[in-house]
């Protein structure tokens, strides 16, 4: 057991290292000079003042050091929790900017992932049982999974927001509101959250339902199901077993899908101007704010890795075979 998790942790550690390195590289090799673009926005016209500010900022960001030094500094600051200073929201530290966005992203991704997984598995299991349901659920599922996030988002914003006018289509809360601990504000948050949540939920739902349906059908044709049928066991029991066995690959599937889901969530946030990491990254890219880009991506990588690790643990808990294998192996 310890060896198993040790190996997993090592893999995740390596992944993290590679991700950090790539993450550090990308903005540095992006075209354009961040300091110059920032100064351009600041409208500094006098050449002398321009030079002074330029060297001040370059020094501040450490861009005048040799590249390997920048890399080491990067790690050093990272380990101290210092992601640098945002350029476009200067002088707010990147960590503060991210802290403001993360609750929105997590609040969007977590419920949509978990709910779509649970509801999708349930719907798929039912579809596998009834022909009529299968014939309707399956095409709907395929349409939903095939739908690009961008497209469904725009469609829903247009339908529910513009045409029907039921729900707001942009922002995390109304402009007229100030964040506060009141019911009115909480309700406002929920209303703004609902459409982006729904579009993420629906797209993921189709995939889980199809996966579960196929897995159940496969399990129902497996040897242990046939044996139980031969012994006259009722369908109820056989289905119960099939469901449990079919859920296991779906858990692995969840781990595999996390990256895709997060990417989808980023796009959805952008469509709905939802103030999470997705919108943040878009703005950071627009402003060549590479400390912010780095910080946001690092946070996402870290989040996905942690989620993967949690899924690993859950898998070990629910699948007796992995546990048995570990006991036998150590």
């Amino acid at each position: 057991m310890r060896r198993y998790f040790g190996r997993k942790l090592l893999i995740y550690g390596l992944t993290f290292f590679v991700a950090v390195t790539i993450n550090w590289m990308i903005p540095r090799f992006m075209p354009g000079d961040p300091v110059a673009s920032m100064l351009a926005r600041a409208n500094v016209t006098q050449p002398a003042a321009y030079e002074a500010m330029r060297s001040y900022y370059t020094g501040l960001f450490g861009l005048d050091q040799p590249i390997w030094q920048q890399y080491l500094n990067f790690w050093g600051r990272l380990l101290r929790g210092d992601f640098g200073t945002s350029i476009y929201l200067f002088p707010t530290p990147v960590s503060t900017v991210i802290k403001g966005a993360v609750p929105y992203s997590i609040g969007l991704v977590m419920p949509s992932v978990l709910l779509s997984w649970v509801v999708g598995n349930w719907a798929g299991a039912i579809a596998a049982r009834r022909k009529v349901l299968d014939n309707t659920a399956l095409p709907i599922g395929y349409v939903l999974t095939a739908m690009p996030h961008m497209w469904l988002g725009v469609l829903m914003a247009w339908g529910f927001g513009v045409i029907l006018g039921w729900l707001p289509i942009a922002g995390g809360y109304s402009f007229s509101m100030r964040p506060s601990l009141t019911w009115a504000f909480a309700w406002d948050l929920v209303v703004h959250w609902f459409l982006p949540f729904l579009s993420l939920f629906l797209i993921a739902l189709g995939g889980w339902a199809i996966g579960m349906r196929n897995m159940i059908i496969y399990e129902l044709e497996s040897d242990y199901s046939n044996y139980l049928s031969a012994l006259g066991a009722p369908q109820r029991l056989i289905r119960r077993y099939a469901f449990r066995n079919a859920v296991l690959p779906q858990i692995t599937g969840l781990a595999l899908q996390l990256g895709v889901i997060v990417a989808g969530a980023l796009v959805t946030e952008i469509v709905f101007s939802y103030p999470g990491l997705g919108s943040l990254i878009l703005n950071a890219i627009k402003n060549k704010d590479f400390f912010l880009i780095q910080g946001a991506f690092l946070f996402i990588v870290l989040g996905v890795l942690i989620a993967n690790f949690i899924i690993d643990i859950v898998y070990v808990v629910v699948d007796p075979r992995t546990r048995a294998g570990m006991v036998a192996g150590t």
Partner: protein
Amino acid sequence: MITVDGLRVYYRTLKGDVRALDGVTFDVRDGEILGLAGESGCGKTTLGKSLIRMDGRMKHVAGTVTLDGRSLPIADDAAMVPFRFHEVSLIPQYSMSALNPTRKIGRMIRELLKARQAPYDEQELHKRLELVGLGVETLERYPIELSGGMKQRMVMVISTLLNPSLLIADEITSALDVSTQKAVATALAGFRDAGFLKSMIFITHDISLTYQIADTIMVMYAGKLAEKAPAKTMVTAPRHPYTQLLLNSLPEVGVRYGQRRLAGIPGSPPSLLNPPDGCRFRDRCPLAYGKCAEEPPPVEVEPGHFVACWKA
């Protein structure tokens, strides 16, 4: 006592019916072990499945099955349920994967018995496990923690737990090594002696293994009965040319299965999709003559010895 009369079971396929079981008649008395042998594809599994649970592609065309004086509704899946496990049981060809991988074995057994409204007699279960050399703690394990042979014996115990009248054991030794094969076969004969089952159909490729435990041997060829005789007679004085070749092609008893696969008879069985008229062994039979264009009916050449051949 089970009586099978003129049983025909076909597989529905896109190309037409595969006549996998084409008129088979025999019976198995109480306390008798019938060894069923024949080349791959001759219909052994089909026969076994017909007696307990036909799959969706199988079609009962003709014939009747009577178990202890009651007619078995083999074509009616729902009506067969009360018979399954209680009266007719099966040790499948796929015993290695017959147990739900995510349930502890003991719990699976309890859930199965409860679902079948059968009492869970823990003492009896423990006794039987010991009989096949499995510790009681095996019940607390998952199937993956058992070796192939252990799973085999576990399935053996589960399938016979309700003392069925008929047990079908399909190819249960193919995956085992020779010494385990013998142990499993002997354990099954022991189950019969202990009264855990009344009669048994023991299916195998391997005539010599059949001979060790069967009272009667039945040889099938291309969906039909070729010969059926007491085990001793079958091995010492076979009358059907196919059985004779089959026995001649066998090396000494004890050689590993697989090397023994009936390589000795040239040619291959006819397609069962549109089988030719007359004797189905005609193309490969060294004794074939004009009359063989007609189908040879099984004839009782001496008491309990049936042969379907014009030359017998």
